[in-house]
């Protein structure tokens, strides 16, 4: 299922690109290429969480990467019913419906044999407890070793050194499991590429401060994945540059649709078809920025790669105390002239959902409307189109009242 989905996706996007080259399609093609690389018979495959592992390290190795949550998860965008069927396979095996649907989907895909091979499985203590647990279970299915990158709650000198040591350990494990060797010059090259891409991402993000915004909501969301999956590869900067040109052209053409409200989107975005775009489009609402779309980390120091890569991770909005999230949210509200904030509360995501009240209180204190939108990334049993429509329309009314 996964392989076929990405093959079809790639063919479709290549066809589209032939007709009308768009950088946003290239972003998606890169995601498809990354997944398909993992399915090649001669690939050495490291399973990892694309969103929270410093991918610059993996880019320095000649290996393929696969994310057991996002790889199957994106399939849900077009094949929701099929995904539900696979999810139920995991439920029948005893995994509670109260667990994250992305994990149930991953486990279901594993049980059905849809996943690629794995040489090593790297788990991560963040974003969530489930991620590391599922990594351990998947490793068991493959008969391979699971390692966990353990991120402390707060960033200080000792915590950074602890994580830096683990990253070196992980590098040795990759060498052992795949036979690939880490060349420190390649790692430095990867870091330089990542830093260049970060600067381009910042330029791109700067462009979104204009009104009307020059990208659409889907680009905002896709960007948060792309900034990690290809970190350390030169193609990342190239595509950011193409996107910058595209956005500039959009702005200069004057053909952008007028916008009534500028929204900041928090936490995850549903992979299953959701009514948001339709309601937002009808009412001139633009998702200007996503919580994870901005470059939240500092430049990586190639002369101090291990600690610097550790610090890249520590700067994630989802690691550490709530202030780390709040600081980024408040900064974005101010810089991007945000009219409203939507927190998408993915049903089983304990750490993001449990912060919604604290964020809501802080955002509303700033005088900005806030909506907790309950739903699920991929489980359609936990999504009601009518209720979502009603909530979004009421929220738009509130934004209208404040303007």
């Amino acid at each position, binding site marked *: 299922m996964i392989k076929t989905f990405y093959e079809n996706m790639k063919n479709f996007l290549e066809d589209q690109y032939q007709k009308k080259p768009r950088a946003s399609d290239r972003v998606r093609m890169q995601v498809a290429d990354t997944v398909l690389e993992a399915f090649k018979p001669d690939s050495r495959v490291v399973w990892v969480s694309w969103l929270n592992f410093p991918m610059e390290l993996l880019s320095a190795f000649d290996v393929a990467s696969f994310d057991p949550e996002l790889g199957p998860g994106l399939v849900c965008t077009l094949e929701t019913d099929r995904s539900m069927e696979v999810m139920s396979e995991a439920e029948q095996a005893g995994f509670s419906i109260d667990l994250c649907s992305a994990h149930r989907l991953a486990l279901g895909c594993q049980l059905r044999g849809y996943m690629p091979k794995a040489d090593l499985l790297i788990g991560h203590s963040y974003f969530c407890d489930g991620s590391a647990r599922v990594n351990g279970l998947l490793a068991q299915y493959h008969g391979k070793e699971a390692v966990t990158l353990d991120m402390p709650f707060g960033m200080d000198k000792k915590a950074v050194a602890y994580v830096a040591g683990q990253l070196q350990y992980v590098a040795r494990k990759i060498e052992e499991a795949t036979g690939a060797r880490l060349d420190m010059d390649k790692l430095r090259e990867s870091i330089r590429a990542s830093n260049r891409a970060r600067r381009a991402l910042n330029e791109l993000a700067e462009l979104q401060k204009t009104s009307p915004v020059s990208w659409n909501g889907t680009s905002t969301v896709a960007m948060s994945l792309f900034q990690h999956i290809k970190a350390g590869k030169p193609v990342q900067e190239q595509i950011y540059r193409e996107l910058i040109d595209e956005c500039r052209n959009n702005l200069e053409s004057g053909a952008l649709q007028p916008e009534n409200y500028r929204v900041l989107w928090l936490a995850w975005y549903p992979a299953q078809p959701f009514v948001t775009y339709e309601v937002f489009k009808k009412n001139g609402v633009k998702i200007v920025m996503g919580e994870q779309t901005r470059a939240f980390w500092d430049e990586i120091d190639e002369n101090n790669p291990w600690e610097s890569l550790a610090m890249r991770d520590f700067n994630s909005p989802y690691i550490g105390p709530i202030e780390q999230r709040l600081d980024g949210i408040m900064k974005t509200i101010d810089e991007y002239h945000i009219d409203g904030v939507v927190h998408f509360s993915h049903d089983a995501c304990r750490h993001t959902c*449990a*912060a919604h009240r604290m964020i809501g209180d802080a955002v509303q204190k700033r005088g900005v409307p806030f909506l907790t939108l309950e739903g699920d990334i991929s489980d359609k049993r936990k999504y009601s189109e009518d209720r979502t429509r009603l909530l979004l329309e009421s929220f738009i009314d509130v934004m209208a009242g404040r303007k």
Partner: protein
Amino acid sequence: MGAKTKRIGYFCPLVPEEIIMAAGLQPVRMAGEAESTSAADGHLYHNLCPYIKNVMSTGLDRGAKHLDGVVFARSCDGMRRMFDAWRTYIDTRFIYMLEVPKNTDEPALKYYASQLKDFASAIGQAFDVTIDDAALRAAIKQAGKFRQAAQDIFALQRSKPLPVKGSDLFAVSARASTQDKDAALKEIKKLSSAAGKAKPEKAGSRRPRILISGNMMDRPDLFELLEAAGADVPVADLCTDLRYFSRQADGTAGDPYLALARAYLGEPHCSRTASPIERTVEIQKLIRDYSIDGVLLTSLKFCDLHLYDAPYITETLKNAGIPVLFLENDYTFTNKGQLKVRIEAFIEVLNEKRD
């Protein structure tokens, strides 16, 4: 400790009580006392584990004036968010987040030891005391006494007939972490002196022996239901039972913080610090040691750490011929009627299997 001893609340048993005791303070594990968790539903989220929602609701209802401080541990996603919400909404004199690694290898142990040292320094500073190695060793010794006394009872529990009723042992266990340690030691010793007075079983009347394995539990309902259904519970692999009493550090020599780190991150593990595979191996050892006939695997609802493990543990044990009943619980056991039916059916099946 006198009546005026300052009290420090803590939530996760991975917080070493010894450090709090070394500061001359009384550690008090926080049990949820709220009848409804609606206050926490509003401040956190409905999908969090009922223990967290209950203690948060208790805090929101009562405040924290009866405590001199509260210590959190990075034990799970819910706990780190409760740390944020607690300091946002509940006025508390001293709040601390203790870093607990997820890994248990040497670098993790050393890191945890360094975090314990930082914790000792922070608590010492907050309460104007100096925790030196001698004070910590003394606290380790004091805690060791009541832990050892409890371990002695657990050792007896391996024999047949069961020397101490499971629900009686659990009551003392769950209370031990919430009261002063001298009082806890007295209760344990009292229980110990009553052990060994059990009458020999009549031939053919042996009650099935059940292991309860799960996470945080403060109420005895599952023990009582099992006993009422005709089973014995020699041991419970819970945060508030065997695991709590097993954190015995050797503080006589070397770095006492490293000794504590080894004790708290060592066996028996909870799902926080071990993979489902390692957990299963440890449960299998308990099954052998305590001559267990069946396992009641339980988890608080929405506890990801335990819910992900449950299918693997269940399948592995069943494949090894050990009957398993998996039950989610809501911490206050409001669905006792349903649990009763499931437990009675489980015991019936076990009895049939033995016949």
